[in-house]
């Protein structure tokens, strides 16, 4: 899994490069993303390519959010596909994460 990292102003946008974020690859995802979860980070996860997330994937996303928040940063999510949105809503994660349609909208929300 090779994360693509871009920036919009001082916001770091991380594209999740997988179709499935599940028990099979969350450990690797966590390993790859953890250097980016620095103090006061302004992060956006672009999930446009992800078609499926399971409880492990949700857990990994949640733990990223907690880690970033603990260090004074924030994490927003954009580009959720319909299927993934259904899963987010099932476990009410849509109330925990700030979600946007595009990475630009998400980055703008940091202004």
């Amino acid at each position, binding site marked *: 899994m090779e994360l693509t990292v871009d920036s919009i102003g001082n916001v770091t946008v991380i594209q999740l490069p997988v179709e*499935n974020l*599940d*028990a*099979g690859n*969350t*450990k690797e995802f*966590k390993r790859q993303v953890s250097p980016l979860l620095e103090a006061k980070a302004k992060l956006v996860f672009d999930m446009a390519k992800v078609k*499926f997330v*399971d*409880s*492990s994937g*949700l*857990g*990994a996303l*949640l*733990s990223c959010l*907690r880690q970033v928040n603990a260090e004074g940063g924030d994490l927003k999510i954009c580009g959720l596909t319909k*299927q993934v949105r*259904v*899963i987010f809503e*099932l*476990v009410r994660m849509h109330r925990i994460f700030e979600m946007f349609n595009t990475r630009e909208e998400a980055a703008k929300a940091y202004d």
Partner: protein
Amino acid sequence: MSILIVDDSLDDRLLLETFLKKAGFSELTLADSARDSFRQLGLEEPTREVNHVDLVLMDVLMPEIDGIEACRRIKASGQFSDVPIIMITAQTETEYLQSAFDAGAIDYITKPVNKVELLARVSSALTLKREMDQRKAREKEIIDIGSEIQQTLLQGQPPQDFPGIGVAAFTMQSLRIGGDFYDFFKHNDQCLDIIIGDVMGKGIPAALMGAAIKNQFVRAINHLIAKEGIGRIPEPEEIVRLVHSELSAELIKLDSFVTLCYARVDLNGSRLSFVDCGHAKSLHFRQATGKHVVLEGENVPLGVSESEYYRQVSVPFELGDLFVFYSDGVTEMRNEAGEFFGLERLGKFMEENRRLPPGELVRGIRRAVVSFSGTEVFSDDVACVIMRIEGAKTDFPLARDYLEMSSDLSELVRVRAFVKEVCGNIPPSALSEQGKSQLELAVHEVITNIIRHAYHGRPNKLIQMEVELSYEKITFRLCHWGEGYEPGDIEPPDFDDDTRQVGFGLYIIDQVADEVRYVQDEDGKNCVYLVKNLEVLRGE
């Protein structure tokens, strides 16, 4: 009786009002323009209560919309198409009279209005209107009674309790009473006959003919059973031949004919035998293939040829198969563009919705036909009967499938594809797309738990998955030979340690499934049952 006066001249309106009032007409409404008259009649705003009116006196020359155009619109409105309209015209405007009559006016009066002439024409128009109203009321009464008799006594009721066969039917008669009919004859617990027919013509004559034909069938069946003695049920072709010999000559004399299909479902032999007398082609939906076959016979309608020899055709069926019988009113329904509803649309509707109970299916077809035609007022009678071979139990599995996998997280993609494929057989009305995505996730979570908690992450261990789809629910049975575990054994989620997300998974499983059971059998095989109920409306 109530009269509407439409004239843009105040003097003329008052003059007409005075003449009519003096003559004893008290219900007068005045309008100063065509548009005003539309407002008074409630034609401008459909929500407004419609004013009752028995006669319209309409000035010809008016600004904006003239009397001729106004006349045309009132006549075209439907609810006022029977209201007589008398045009009021100046001597010099008589060239307009032809177009006024073309627009639907019945008479005219010239200005200056002569009182005697006015009253004579008004009362003759009102007399006509009164008689027409009475005649219509009588006709309506006859059709009301006839329609009720047909619906309650003449139209057969689909059997609700025939073991192993689900049946539902509907008719819509274009004149509320008509020549489409169906009936059901129950010979024993294994054998159900259905007759569906369409008599030439419409209305009361067609309904009477339909009743007479059904009566002939009952007589023929009784006659044949009596002749054969106890023990044999006459074949459909024998019944149709006897009816034909009794009836066709009479039908030919009456210059009438009837198309019909007489079919028998024989549960014992798992066969449908039918005689198709020039009727709309019935459809057979096969559970095994999900596709339909058109059932074609070879005979002409009853009442066409005295020398016709009626033969039955017989087809085998399986559990879950569906039969659709209908009149050509269904397939020959036209939309605004003049296209037919057609066999293809009917077939497509059935293929997409074939898992619904028969009651739901006939209602769905009715809705589809109504929305296709864009009207509830049909030009032809419509009938439809649907039968499903259900077997002894209504909740028999429609489909079963099986998947074997190893205890490896990389297998999860295959698991989800499998669940997705099975869910593809469920119509959206039974389980929404969202519900399907959730179910996919829940099964995924169960497998993840088995890999983690039963096999403790050991690879290459066997997991079996069986899925059973019925009308009421979808059941997944997930079996493994690892350690038995129960939800209580699993610690609640700890989001700071993402190697232990199982509690989250259990929450998902609980949210999605209607029932989850953990069972161990004697051989040490552990099974997790996950059941999702489907939104299936019971047949009626």
